[in-house]
């Protein structure tokens, strides 16, 4: 089983990296792109079957370490492989 944690800066927090990439895209002619936000994707391989417990453990780990809840939001997706 795999858990995919997507982390991005909270809305309203300026993302200077995204802004620079947005500018570069405009230079390349992709003017329809209005805004870019950069995030992180963390893939976790998991040994276990208890879905409810896994969901809760990954939630905990994301809150404690993978994301900083002061500035970042995260989403967790659990996938069978």
């Amino acid at each position, binding site marked *: 089983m795999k858990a995919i944690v997507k982390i991005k*800066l909270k809305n309203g*927090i*300026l993302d*200077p*990296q995204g802004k*620079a990439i947005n500018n570069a895209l405009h230079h390349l002619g992709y003017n329809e792109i209005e805004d870019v936000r950069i995030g992180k994707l963390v893939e976790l391989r998991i040994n276990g079957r208890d879905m409810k417990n896994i969901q809760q453990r990954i939630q905990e780990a994301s809150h404690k*370490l*993978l994301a*900083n809840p*002061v*500035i970042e939001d995260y989403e967790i997706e659990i996938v069978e492989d």
Partner: protein
Amino acid sequence: MKSAVIVFPGSNCDHDMYHALKILGHDVRYVWHKNPNLDDFDLVVLPGGFSYGDYLRAGAIARFSPIMLEVRRFARKGKFLLGICNGFQILTETGLLPGALLKNQNIRFVCQQVFLRVENRSTSFTNANKLRRPLKIPIAHGEGNYFIEAAGLEELRANHQVIFRYVDEQNNVNAEANPNGSIDNIAGIINKEGNILGMMPHPERAVETMLGSSDGRIIFESLQEANKKNRKALSHA
């Protein structure tokens, strides 16, 4: 005053800090991050650098280092804890100080002299400041853009917890003097109890006039003053 400089894998300002404390008369020791005992010390410094390679977020991994439990316990006793640069990032990640440090607004690593206004001179870290001009102290960081949500900022202001703000040489707070986009030009803050200070600028690199400035001394001298008072209070108790 017995002072400890914590050394994490990836710390790189530990030697500068050791030198600064030593020449200012602190009894200073390095403490490796796996060493669990800080009982003998009056001051603990988390120095600058790139602990654990800044992986994930600056300070995020150092926060779970074995020494950090002991650092928390140390701070809970009311002893002095100072975080410089990466040390400040570790303190916010740990939750010992509020807010967070984001990437600099111009996405560049900024390495330059800045001017700091001391907003509160009655703390244990600033009481020796008699200067009527801003402090000249260098910064060197890529993630020093201080952020806190509106309610938190109000609280910092109301409790006089904002200690240093970036200003120009004439002591004006303005956007041009802000090197990294920090909210309200904040360069350093203190906890409510007044024993934990975090700041992005490097006072340990400003202790000798020969090297550009000695304004950083006031922080280490203030701590010595505060420590004397603490000791007196304890011996009378």
